[in-house]
């Protein structure tokens, strides 16, 4: 029998029960998640309307909902612009969710896949393919034939594994995790710089373009894997949230509550790496979305741990906004990753100044 929002058995914690599942009913969290979803939709409509053939957002919404519209409008929206907008939504969501998972596992509000060096690993692999790939034999030849996105994926996974191996010492120490990430990032950055100096100027420009992270080369073939992963993971979010509610209490309390701490930490980190890797392979290393989204989502929803779905929705909105800004306001169209890095860096500095160093730690 389905009960919905029932009387509060515990004061101020009404329960939402559906069948055998129950959760605490949090109106503000629910409302803001819905609001973020609507915002994402609106930004999509705006983004689909931008370009040499401008279409107003309301008309875009009308076309999408009723599937009407003229042939040219269909061509413009679905063939030209939809890949870019869809990639922005999916990559933003993947980065937002990856960021919230990383912050929960590292139990530090300043952790993110960028700082852990995963995106640097993806970048190093991609730059290697771009610079060396053309006309090389052996392993690099095979790698260049499968293309930059797959190379990015492999690079991210390898780095994730390396960091886990380095940081593991009877459990994950957040400090050692960040430290390992920094060291590996520095090594990979040296490799990238080395490759950039040995490349032809054209290759170097292409590589640097990719490194800045942008949506200009978005296509259906790159967007679909991201869509696939998110669709596969979506049913898991509820289970992940359930596990996280124990994880954030710290490893000792979580173990006392019966959670297998090491495997859950490993699994959550794997998910974070997978999402970050897919996002980087689709659109290059877009900086700081994964860092900011969990914070803003957390503040909006009034929780003290990063909410997963809300982080994803905010990440999507943020990336869409950055993309719209680069297409309209800036005189030159620059890769969207530059905007998110600059704004994100400033936001992080503000965070550092205003935070009371509240780590989610025991």
């Amino acid at each position, binding site marked *: 029998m389905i009960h919905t929002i029932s009387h509060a058995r515990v004061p101020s914690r009404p329960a939402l029960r559906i069948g055998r599942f129950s959760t605490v009913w949090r109106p503000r969290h629910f409302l803001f998640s819905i609001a973020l979803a609507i915002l994402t939709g609106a930004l999509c409509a705006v983004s689909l309307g931008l370009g040499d053939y401008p279409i107003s957002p309301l008309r875009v919404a009308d076309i999408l909902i009723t599937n009407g519209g003229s042939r040219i409008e269909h061509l413009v929206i679905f063939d030209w612009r939809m890949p870019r907008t869809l990639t922005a939504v999916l990559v933003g969501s993947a980065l937002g969710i990856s960021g919230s998972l990383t912050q929960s596992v590292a139990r530090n509000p300043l952790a993110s896949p960028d700082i852990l060096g995963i995106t640097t690993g993806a970048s190093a692999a991609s730059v290697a393919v771009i610079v060396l790939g053309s006309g090389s034999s052996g392993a690099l030849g095979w790698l260049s034939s499968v293309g930059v996105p797959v190379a990015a994926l492999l690079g991210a996974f390898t780095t994730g594994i390396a960091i886990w191996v380095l940081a593991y010492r009877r459990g994950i120490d957040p400090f050692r995790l960040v430290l390992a990430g*920094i060291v590996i990032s520095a090594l990979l950055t040296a490799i990238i710089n080395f490759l950039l100096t040995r490349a032809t100027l054209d290759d170097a420009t292409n590589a640097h373009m990719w490194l800045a992270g942008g949506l200009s080369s978005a296509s259906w073939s790159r967007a679909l894997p991201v869509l696939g992963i998110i669709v596969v993971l979506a049913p898991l979010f509820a289970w992940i949230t359930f596990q996280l509610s124990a994880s954030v209490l710290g490893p000792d309390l979580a173990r006392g509550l019966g959670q297998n701490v090491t495997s859950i930490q490993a699994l959550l980190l794997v998910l974070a790496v997978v999402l970050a890797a897919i996002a980087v392979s689709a659109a290059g290393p877009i900086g700081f979305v994964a860092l900011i989204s969990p914070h803003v989502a957390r503040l909006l929803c009034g929780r003290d741990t990063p909410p997963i779905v809300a982080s994803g929705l905010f990440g999507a909105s943020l990336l869409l906004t950055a993309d719209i800004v680069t297409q309209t306001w800036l005189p030159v169209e620059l890769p969207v990753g530059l905007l998110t890095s600059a704004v994100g860096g400033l936001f992080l500095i503000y965070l*550092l100044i205003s935070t009371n160093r509240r780590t989610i730690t025991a």
Partner: protein
Amino acid sequence: MISTIHRGRLIGLLALTTLLTLGCLLSLAFGARAIPLGDLGGLLRDVPSALSAPTIADPNLQVIVEYRWPRTLIGMLVGAALGTAGALIQGHTRNRLADPGILGITSGASLAVVFSFAVFHISSMWATSAWAFGGACLATIVVFSLAAFTGDGSNPMTLVLGGAALNAVLLAVISAFVLTDSDNLDRMRFWTVGSIAGRDMSIFWTALPIVLIALLLALMTGPTLNVLNLGDDVATSLGVHTVRARILGMVIIALLAAAATATAGPIAFLGLVIPHLIRPLTGPDYRWILPYSALGGAVLLLYADILGRLITRPGELEVGIVLAFVGAPIFIWFITRDRVVAL
């Protein structure tokens, strides 16, 4: 009467100095151009007189005097500056993860370089170095203000991540410059790597007084740093003016890091790794750590440069890259051996 510990440390200093002298000779003798070993003895003996000669007939001697001699001197200077700057940053911020590169100082220098090239079309080595110096100093001010605003910076995470944030902002701006004009990219990609090749003696003579004065000041602040590390309250009660000492420390770090980056480009890792490497030899006493860091930094940079010249003959591997390849595994070994402790 010199105690056993002091005697041991003095011997260590002497050993490092010997290594450095040996490194000098090796750096003059070896390089991308292979000079037959038999001739080396005679050539090296001719170097002092050749330094003041207007023209040099022997091509081997010319290579040694015009390319390797400035390179050796600059390598020692930059290495000493970076090693000491790293030890000082780690001491003042009480943070074993601090390093001029991680804190964004070198990105400030790079941004100044790309800006000067893009807007003012400055391409001479000397002028570029001057701009880099200014940019690095500016970035130092920003970074340490950040540390001041977030408390005493005793949480290692805060300073590291603040540096990462500043790096991200500066690198985004640099990317904006670089992507809008491929000439900018061409200029920057060689600067970013960090190399001591191609610099002539004018740069050395300009950087030398700055680095020497800063090194001297640094060595003099060794005792103060020891007292500061007991904690600000204890230091104040012992008569140390903490704010003044910190500001002086910042100025010294800025001068050293800025001079080094201006001369050789952003070289990562030296400032971070050297203090960790020598601490087992010196203990926590900054009166020993600072001179050891200076010598150790010079030795490491010089040997890394020699290695870079020999690995890919007849080409060269830039010293910044060799250091990262050498420094990262060392540091990883440190991490896995629990040698790195969060303060």
